[in-house]
């Protein structure tokens, strides 16, 4: 077995050169909250070259350009949960980050790690889906930009081992009338994996839904957006009956995607209820 090695690049160029050279053999580590349990269980067989990316400058940014909010992948969940700019522009992302793991995990785990490890229960991913995030990857070969939806659709292939996620950005929701809902269902409040997470953003005009985006985590192999429900809801008043119908459309779609599963006996009725709640919440009007 090849000897393990540890590199701590301080610039992106340096990191990309290392990734180009070691590619498949490398283990990229930032917060380590996903890497370390693997290391403990199986060692780094096949990936003995550790590249610690936490010292690279320029991957921890949070800034607005006129119409988009940029978040560097090295931002920890604690930073995202408490950053004033994110709290005011995309409060649902702060809420999602605040729900991850425990304080100790949030102090280490990064939003980039959530996207790269891409567990079915990754809490920030459903929020990033409805915020319509765009992901920027860099490599020696060049840069590529991919929408989070496309990234998830090709998730089976994972990323090229010579690439590094360098930026996450999304359009700043254009007006103040967007309302948000995030709910994480888990066995307990702290230090628990999502059994289910619901992210919803919507805006209303004169009591009718103008646009509604819904994403669900931990039910399908990757968090997923459910656009057919959004379409169904357009122009409708979120009455109890409409919300019920919408929830039914969503759970039917889940069935189509995954086929029948034993866990559905519990999961689908609960999912239906949570979707209804997320929509009935709109009756209060859209306030942040």
């Amino acid at each position, binding site marked *: 077995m090849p000897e393990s090695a540890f590199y701590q690049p301080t610039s992106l160029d340096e990191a990309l050169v290392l990734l180009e050279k070691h590619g498949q053999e490398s283990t990229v580590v930032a917060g*380590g909250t996903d890497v*370390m349990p693997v290391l*403990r269980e199986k*060692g*780094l067989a096949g990936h003995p070259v550790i590249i610690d990316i936490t010292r690279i400058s320029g991957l921890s940014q949070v800034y607005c350009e006129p119409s988009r909010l940029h978040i560097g992948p090295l931002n920890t969940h*604690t930073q995202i949960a408490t950053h004033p700019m994110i709290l005011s522009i995309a409060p649902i992302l702060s809420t999602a980050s605040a729900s991850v793991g425990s*304080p*100790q995990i949030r102090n*280490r785990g990064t939003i980039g790690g959530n996207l790269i490890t891409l567990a079915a229960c990754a809490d920030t991913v459903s929020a990033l889906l409805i915020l319509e995030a765009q992901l920027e990857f860099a490599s020696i070969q060049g840069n590529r930009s991919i929408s989070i939806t496309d990234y998830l659709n090709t998730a089976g292939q994972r990323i090229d081992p010579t690439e590094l996620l360098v930026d996450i950005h999304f359009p700043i929701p254009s007006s103040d009338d967007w309302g948000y809902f995030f709910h994480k269902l888990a066995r307990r409040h702290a230090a628990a994996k999502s059994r289910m997470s619901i992210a919803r953003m919507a805006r209303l005009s004169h009591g009718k839904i103008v646009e509604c985006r819904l994403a669900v985590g931990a039910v399908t192999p990757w968090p997923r957006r459910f656009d057919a429900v959004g379409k169904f809801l357009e122009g409708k008043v979120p009455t109890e009956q409409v919300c019920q119908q919408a929830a039914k459309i969503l759970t039917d779609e889940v069935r189509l995607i995954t086929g029948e599963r034993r866990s559905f006996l519990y999961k689908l009725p609960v999912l239906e209820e949570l979707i209804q709640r997320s929509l009935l919440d709109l009756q209060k009007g859209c306030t942040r």
Partner: protein
Amino acid sequence: MDGNTISIACEVNGVMRRIEVEPTERLVDVLRDKLFLTGTKEGCGIGECGACTVLLDDMPVNSCMVLAAQAGGRRILTIEGIKGEGTALHPLQQAFIDAGAVQCGYCTPAMVLCGYALLKSNPHPTEDDIRLAISGTLCRCTGYVQIIEAINLAVARMEHKEN
């Protein structure tokens, strides 16, 4: 066996240390086995129980989730670094004793460190703040109520001293 050792320099409990570590070595193992700071306990080893909590640049982290090599240039505080004035215990430590917040003791170093980090950033926490601060550390004796009381007691004593 790992070959290339890395030499890191970091501040541990206020003292600069130079330590040779293996690329895959965990911070918890270096603290316990190389620096003999055995107050840091390993529980689950997968970041769920919080027993191995130390403060890294003032933030509670699970030391089983940190590669030792990543700690170069950083500031680490373990339970051995928590002290009061002179030879006295820190008010938090004294409060843990007075409130009966120590049962088997395995989670105690982590609980004290979580309380310490909380009081440093928020000297007047609410009970909810305290509950959140210790939420990543499991007490399998389930003595949470006394632990919350202990932190509240320390807050009250420290506030009293301020006035």
